[in-house]
């Protein structure tokens, strides 16, 4: 690899993605610098980084959203580039501009692209104008007066969404027009709360659609390629749990079609660096959903099947170099599935859980990649997103990859905090999932996956618990042998 014009990269992120970026930096011989809030002081990313700079804020999240402190830290660390990861400031055009103004290369697209795609309504309009399909929709700000009637005219079911945002926040499905007003009020409240933006739009909701997205890479010279699709249909509360590639729903023809649409959209937007174009797929057509202008959580599945290090490519592009790959270099081999391990209780409606990681043992196997941001002894709090780690399994077929994933879930030991690991194991063994008949409503339609099962090894579990609990053992040891041998006897 040619030498890059910077030798230090600041990571403006935390957790597993920070650790994952550091791994690539090391591979490329670059120095890593990281900013961290005190709550993350003991996390692997902070100990892995060559330089770690503490930042603070009124909450841990606020610290990672403080552009001023982060850019100052990047200058202090003499970083020539800044990788924003995902979330936090990764999709802030203002931040990208400020980074560039400070003379630091922003590892991502131009601030214009971020601005264009960051606003969902603007992005939809742009895509529509460029001649690509979007779902029928009504946008409030077009004419607030007629918004409710336009929304109704779309026909049921509807999906109400805040214009800003993502991560499923504020989204509401409407199946009965009587509840439309409530859904609008709710979406507005959530939009204001999370994104300080009360603008809304409503689109026709495809029942049980699939979520298909395409990974693209572009350089500053107008070269654009795709790295095939990912399917992320297994979701709960509009948030992805399982991501895989290739999608079991696509024929080669459909795959070609969606990848070409994605490249077309990116090309129209003059897109640079790594991005993801998301679609809703109803079995026949792809409707543009949004474009994410950053590295995605689920990027490792693409890396596993293509053998390409996306972060390395991002850095290469950010250094102003042309793409090193042409479309024909990109070959997808086998099947990769990613499962997100969350600190949450699927049995109790996926409520987030907390705890301290008392034991953490990842199985080491061929074809298994685990991107983890946690370490034994770490306290899991509700301060951040509850995602703890990602398990990515690469195998020759989808079924093999799923069954291998199930095995990893059964072997993985994470004690001290309730997680969705057992749920993931059940999911990977579920026949419907294995058949590939998945869609965004899959978990709602198959509540047995989340419901858990009664303990099959109850006597063994209780025996272990009893033997490991001092008062239980003590009370047993206290009983005189003679009386223990007689047992429960009454005269």
């Amino acid at each position, binding site marked *: 690899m040619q030498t890059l014009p910077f030798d230090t990269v600041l990571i403006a992120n935390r957790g597993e993605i920070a650790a994952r970026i550091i791994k690539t930096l090391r591979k490329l011989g670059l120095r890593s610098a990281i900013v961290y809030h005190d709550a993350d002081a003991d996390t692997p990313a902070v100990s892995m980084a060559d330089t770690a700079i503490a930042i603070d804020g009124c909450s841990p999240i606020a610290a990672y959203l403080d552009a001023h402190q982060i850019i100052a830290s990047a200058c202090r660390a003499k970083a020539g580039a800044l990788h924003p990861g995902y979330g936090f400031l990764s999709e802030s055009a203002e931040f990208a501009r400020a980074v560039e103004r400070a003379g630091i290369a922003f590892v991502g697209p131009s601030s214009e692209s971020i601005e264009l795609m960051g606003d969902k309504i603007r992005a939809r309009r742009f895509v529509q104008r460029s001649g690509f399909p979007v779902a029928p929709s009504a946008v409030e700000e077009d004419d607030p007066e007629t918004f409710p009637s336009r929304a109704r005219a779309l026909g049921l079911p509807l999906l109400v969404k805040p214009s800003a945002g993502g991560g499923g926040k504020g989204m509401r499905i409407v199946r009965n027009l009587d509840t439309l007003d409530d859904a609008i009020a709710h979406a507005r409240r959530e939009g204001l709360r999370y994104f300080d933006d009360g603008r809304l739009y409503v689109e026709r909701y495809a029942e049980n659609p699939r979520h298909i997205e395409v990974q693209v890479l572009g350089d500053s010279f107008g070269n654009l390629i795709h790295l095939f699709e990912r399917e992320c249909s297994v979701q709960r509360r509009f948030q992805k749990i399982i991501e895989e590639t290739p999608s079991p729903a696509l024929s080669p023809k459909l795959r070609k079609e969606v990848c070409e649409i994605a490249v077309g959209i990116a090309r129209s937007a003059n897109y640079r660096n790594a991005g993801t174009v998301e679609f809703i797929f109803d079995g026949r057509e792809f409707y543009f959903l949004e474009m994410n202008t950053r590295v995605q959580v689920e990027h490792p599945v693409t890396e596993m099947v293509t053998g390409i290090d996306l972060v390395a490519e991002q850095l290469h592009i950010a250094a102003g170099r042309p793409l090193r790959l042409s479309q024909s270099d990109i070959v997808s081999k086998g099947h990769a599935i990613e499962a997100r391990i969350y600190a949450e209780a699927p049995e109790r409606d996926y409520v987030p859980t907390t705890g301290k990681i008392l034991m953490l043992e990842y199985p080491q196997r061929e074809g298994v990649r685990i991107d983890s941001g946690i370490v034994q002894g770490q306290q899991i709090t509700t301060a951040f997103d509850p995602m703890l780690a990602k398990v990515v399994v690469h195998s020759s077929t989808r079924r093999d990859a799923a069954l291998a994933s199930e095995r990893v879930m059964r072997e993985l030991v994470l004690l001290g905090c309730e997680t969705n690991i057992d749920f993931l194991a059940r999911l990977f063994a579920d026949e419907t999932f294995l058949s590939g008949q998945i869609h965004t409503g899959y978990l709602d339609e198959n509540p047995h996956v989340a419901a858990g099962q009664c303990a099959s090894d109850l006597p063994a579990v209780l*025996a272990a618990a*009893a033997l490991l609990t001092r008062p239980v053992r003590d009370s*047993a040891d206290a009983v005189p042998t003679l009386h223990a041998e007689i047992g429960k006897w009454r005269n």
Partner: protein
Amino acid sequence: MKHSFALDVENYELWLSPGQHGYRLHLDDEVFAPVSFSHELDGSGTLVIASDTIPVKFAIDGDRLYLHIRGRTYILRYRDQLRTLACLDDQASHLVARAPMPGVVIATKVSRGDVVSGGATLMLVESMKLEFVVRAPRGGVVERIHFGVGDSFERDSALVTFSEEGR
């Protein structure tokens, strides 16, 4: 009095008794014997139950016990009978809001028959020149207000009694 563990939403009662080889585990009417646990490395060991030998990973955090057995994770909580039983009955005693110190009633904020939720303000009282709020220890229907404005009361006096009706 047996030992009790909470697992998910269930409580399980059990008793361990010494046997000739290891222990005996009593669950309801079933007995599993012998049972034994041998510690290996930190946090791992081997459970023997009847004729089964099962590797176990475990972590203990206070009354919480995390077990990884046969590919599944179980989170159990040891329910200390002393504490559980005391708490159970705390709830029963919560049907009465009592005075934490002697004082005088300044104002009552509820009337007989009112449905209140836990934490609701019931009374303003004055004690040692300080005003403080008497709150509902839990939700219920106000059955009786024992003191009127201006009345003085002793420490531990019942101030307001609730019934559980309508809950």
